[in-house]
């Protein structure tokens, strides 16, 4: 390898050659570009031919240019190799330029979207999640974990909508229970995906989740620790899936009660957190206090918030899981449809609310 570097260094000195690794990395970025293969593999091929004596084994897969007639004169070899390197370098520069241009235009678009978003927010509006690019929000203030979540959530909502439509069609078409079970499984897994995404987002910025910034305004109105309240959910679903057997009614009633108790305990835990935080922040406002210690203990408190959001999601997940066990296949399918449709309506209401004509003051 060191002898190769010496070779390359001397060529670089001639000003005719760009570092090999850069060529291959641009190659990786632009796989689909036809001209790419010639550039990178030729460069590697040329290196191999030149350094055969030094037993340099290139790890790049070689294109079959070996079949070409090779001049046996070293001078010609070097000339050809230099020309190929020039070509590869030129192509690399072109690819880099194209890439940078792409980045620039994306950046301009991003700034435009941010401005749009700000304007809409000032008017008290809501930008529909259908144009999911606008879901990117204010990139500058956002951690990458949250930006990732926002995008993923936009896709999640779109997929959710498709799944709900599928479910509706399946129920109307009276498909078999086996087929319904698959749809139900997919639906539940989709929610599980959301909870996983939220767990990651909570690590990045728990306040983002708790504030409900990622949800529409009407959904935010009903928000409980970063999502829907499980017992409320049951209240919404039950009328949609009747008639229920006696046993089912008892089971659901028990589930609602257990969930209610767990929710209340969690709520009290969060209230205690608020109280503790307020107390430690308010300590000795007039005097010197122990700023460092107060801040440290406050940080500890805030770190606990992530646990609360995770527990709330755990309750949501368990509630869905238990319901799917209590209900028959058909009922579970209707339940999932009802839930999806309900949340969809909340989102639609948010859009309507934002779009309604404002009274001139």
């Amino acid at each position, binding site marked *: 390898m060191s002898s190769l570097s010496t070779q390359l260094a001397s060529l670089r000195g001639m000003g005719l050659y760009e570092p090999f690794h850069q060529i291959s990395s641009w190659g990786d970025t632009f796989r689909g570009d036809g001209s790419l293969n010639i550039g990178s593999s030729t460069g590697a091929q040329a290196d191999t031919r030149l350094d055969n004596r030094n037993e340099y084994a290139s790890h790049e897969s070689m294109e079959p240019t070996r079949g070409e007639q090779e001049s046996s004169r070293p001078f010609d070899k070097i000339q050809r190799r230099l020309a190929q390197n020039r070509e590869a370098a030129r192509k690399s520069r072109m690819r880099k330029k194209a890439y940078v241009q792409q980045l620039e235009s994306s950046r301009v678009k991003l700034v435009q979207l941010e401005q749009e978003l700000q304007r809409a927010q000032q008017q008290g509006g809501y930008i529909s999640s259908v144009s999911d690019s606008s879901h990117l929000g204010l990139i500058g203030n956002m951690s990458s974990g949250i930006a990732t979540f926002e995008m993923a959530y936009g896709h999640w909502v779109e997929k959710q909508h498709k799944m709900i439509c599928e479910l509706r069609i399946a129920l109307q078409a009276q498909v078999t229970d086996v087929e319904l079970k698959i749809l139900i499984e997919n639906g539940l897994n989709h929610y599980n995906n959301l909870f996983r995404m939220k767990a990651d987002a909570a690590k990045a910025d728990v306040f983002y989740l708790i504030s409900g910034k990622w949800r529409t305004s009407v959904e935010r109105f009903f928000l409980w620790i970063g999502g829907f309240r499980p017992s409320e959910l049951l209240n919404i679903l039950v009328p949609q899936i009747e008639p229920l057997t006696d046993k089912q009614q008892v089971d659901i009633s028990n589930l609602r009660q257990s969930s209610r108790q767990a929710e209340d*305990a969690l709520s*009290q*835990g969060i209230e205690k957190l608020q109280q503790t935080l307020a107390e430690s922040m308010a300590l000795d406002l007039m005097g010197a206090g122990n700023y460092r210690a107060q801040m440290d*203990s406050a940080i500890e*408190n805030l770190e*606990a918030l992530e646990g609360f959001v995770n*527990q709330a999601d755990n309750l949501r997940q*368990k*509630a869905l899981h*238990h319901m799917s066990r209590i209900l028959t296949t058909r009922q579970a399918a209707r339940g999932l449809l009802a839930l999806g449709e309900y949340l969809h309506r909340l989102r639609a209401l948010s859009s309507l609310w934002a779009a309604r004509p404002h009274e001139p003051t």
Partner: protein
Amino acid sequence: MERVKQLASERAVVIFSRTTCCMCHTIKTLLGGFGVNAAVHELDEMPQGREIEHALARLGCQSTPMVFIGGELVGGANEVMSLHLNRSLIPMLRRAGALWV
């Protein structure tokens, strides 16, 4: 470890907690709501708190609260909540003699 086992068995329900831990408050509220009179040990106020914390960590407990029912380790908030939604928590408490009704 012996001390942990001893403490864990001295009452039907034993909670290892921390005064600053709000999730502990949640679990205490939940269990208290059922009428359970749990023994609560605040690790940050106990003289041997550190060692007990280490012993609990070896049992697999990463953070407070850590709940023992009938001398057996049940787990943390996650486990307790899940058991309750399962409708398994109350029977467990009853078997351990933590509930009168």
